[in-house]
């Protein structure tokens, strides 16, 4: 195995009395697409900020490209690209100025920065908007510009914090396509998301975080196999009566989850479970059998209570 590109050991981040990240171990290999999954407040963004070398770990060690993040922050930042959760685009500049001036922060020559700007505008499908003021762009365009900007230093590692939150489905697919291309070019991707489809699409390997800790690790498929059944039966009952169904459903499948809007029955044979439920007198308003997804793993591992 090659040396890990990212190597975090017992990483802790505290803000006063609050522990946002509570001793996580993470290794990412070059070329991998790695995801941090977790509900809001799980510690994903704090972890990303430490990896981006803009936030010092409270404890533990963090090495990137074999360099100690505590002492080589600037050298590490020179080799990574960051797409923050909220756009930090320069609203006083045009699209292309946002790119080439950012390149200057990485000490690129003006000519080189402008050359790369041209390429990146193509890549982000923004060539026609090169002279637009950033404020006039759509959400999807701004996101693509953020990604283009993060690539100006030709990073070996790209950090994306919830890259597609708030985008419409078309814009998300365009973005996924661009990220997939980068991955094929050998760029290592580390991203956070709470969209399970995004994680399944993009990540070779991921960790699920909850309350500052890593609660599971593996490929999307292996996590589903490990933590969920093959199929899931989704039952919808009249509003407010979900809790009354537990007696009728007890013992069907491997386990049940009562969600606010539906009851999930985890079973290897969903149809059989539905027949069983009917036999026991359950009368759902609707029923659906589907394959288990990463979302089921997520719900199991991080609990269903609403996290603010």
């Amino acid at each position: 195995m090659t040396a890990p590109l990212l190597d975090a050991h017992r990483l802790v981040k505290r803000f006063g009395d609050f522990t946002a990240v509570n001793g996580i171990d993470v290794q990412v290999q070059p070329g991998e697409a790695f995801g941090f999954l977790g509900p809001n407040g799980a510690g994903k963004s704090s972890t990303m900020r430490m990896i981006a070398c803009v936030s010092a770990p409270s404890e533990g060690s963090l090495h990137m490209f074999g360099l100690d993040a505590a002492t080589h922050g600037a050298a590490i930042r020179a080799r990574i690209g960051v797409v923050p959760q909220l756009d930090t685009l320069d609203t006083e500049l045009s699209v292309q100025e946002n790119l080439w001036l950012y390149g200057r922060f990485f000490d690129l020559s003006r000519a080189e920065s402008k050359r790369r700007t041209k390429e990146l505008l193509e890549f982000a499908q923004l060539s026609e908007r090169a002279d637009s003021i950033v404020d006039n762009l759509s959400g999807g365009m701004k996101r693509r510009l953020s990604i283009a900007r993060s690539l100006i230093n030709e990073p070996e590692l790209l950090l994306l914090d919830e890259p597609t939150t708030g985008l419409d489905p078309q814009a998300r697919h365009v973005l996924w396509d661009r990220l997939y291309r980068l991955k094929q070019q050998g760029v290592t991707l580390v991203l956070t998301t709470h969209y399970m489809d995004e994680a399944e699409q993009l990540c070779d390997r991921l960790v699920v975080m909850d309350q500052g800790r890593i609660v599971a690790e593996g490929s999307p498929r292996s996590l589903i196999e490990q933590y969920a059944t093959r199929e899931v039966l989704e039952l919808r009952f009249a509003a407010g009566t979900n809790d009354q169904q537990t007696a009728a459903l007890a013992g069907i499948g491997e386990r049940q989850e009562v969600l606010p809007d539906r009851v999930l029955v985890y079973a290897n044979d969903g149809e059989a479970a539905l027949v069983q439920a009917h036999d026991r007198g359950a009368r759902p308003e609707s029923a659906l059998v589907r394959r288990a997804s990463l979302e089921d793993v997520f719900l199991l591992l991080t609990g269903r209570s609403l996290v603010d």
Partner: protein
Amino acid sequence: MSAGLLRIIPPAMVVRRPHRMIERHIVAYRRQWLIVVSGFFEPLFYLLSMRAGLGDLVGTVSVGGREVPYDAFVAPALMASSAMNGAIFDSTGNVLHRLKYSRIYDAALATPMSPADVATGEIGWALIRGQLYAISFLVVMAALGLTNSWWSLMALPACALIGLTFAALGFLGTTFMRGWSDMDMVTTLTMPLFLFSATFFPISAYGSWAWVVQLSPLYHGVALVRAANEGVWTASMLGHVAVLTAVALVALTLAARRLDALLRK
């Protein structure tokens, strides 16, 4: 910078690329040159009104044992005040916007740029803009016959020092602002400085309260610009330079630390 020094200076304090920030501003302001030009007129209007109105009423004022007409007395003070106002203007509202709303400092700190690079670059930009105003103001003073000798050119470095001090103070203050409403504090703080820094009357007029005036950094700036314009240099000028430099260095260091604490939590 040697490796030994790097170990002593925390990474946040290393200044290596402040000019990148300035380059960004030059590009951004190419579109907003009118705003830049407008900053020149306010002190000019003040000067013309003082000359036309108050000048006749007041007559002459004694500076360093010499009697000078009131407009020649007040012009250097207006020049110093405009250096302060320009620096404050650039280092507060604009900085607040970049710090809290467009968040371009966050973007800059994701690169090899350090918080000290950002702070120094912002303050450097305020200085450059301030110098442009100072030069044009001096040209107007010369055209109106308010300058006395080539010593008047020394008013430019004096204004640079004033700009540096107030830009650093403005930047530091802005790092404590919670939002736009706190911007009102800026006028509340600079207005008394403008009025009570021996700007419109000599410090002797303040009687036993003169020591309060001396607490104002602008007072030291006004004294320097006035001395430059009169070509009268005394040892006390070194004291004025020392006060402004000390305030500037302390404020700049604290500002870079605050930026580090705010953005690199």
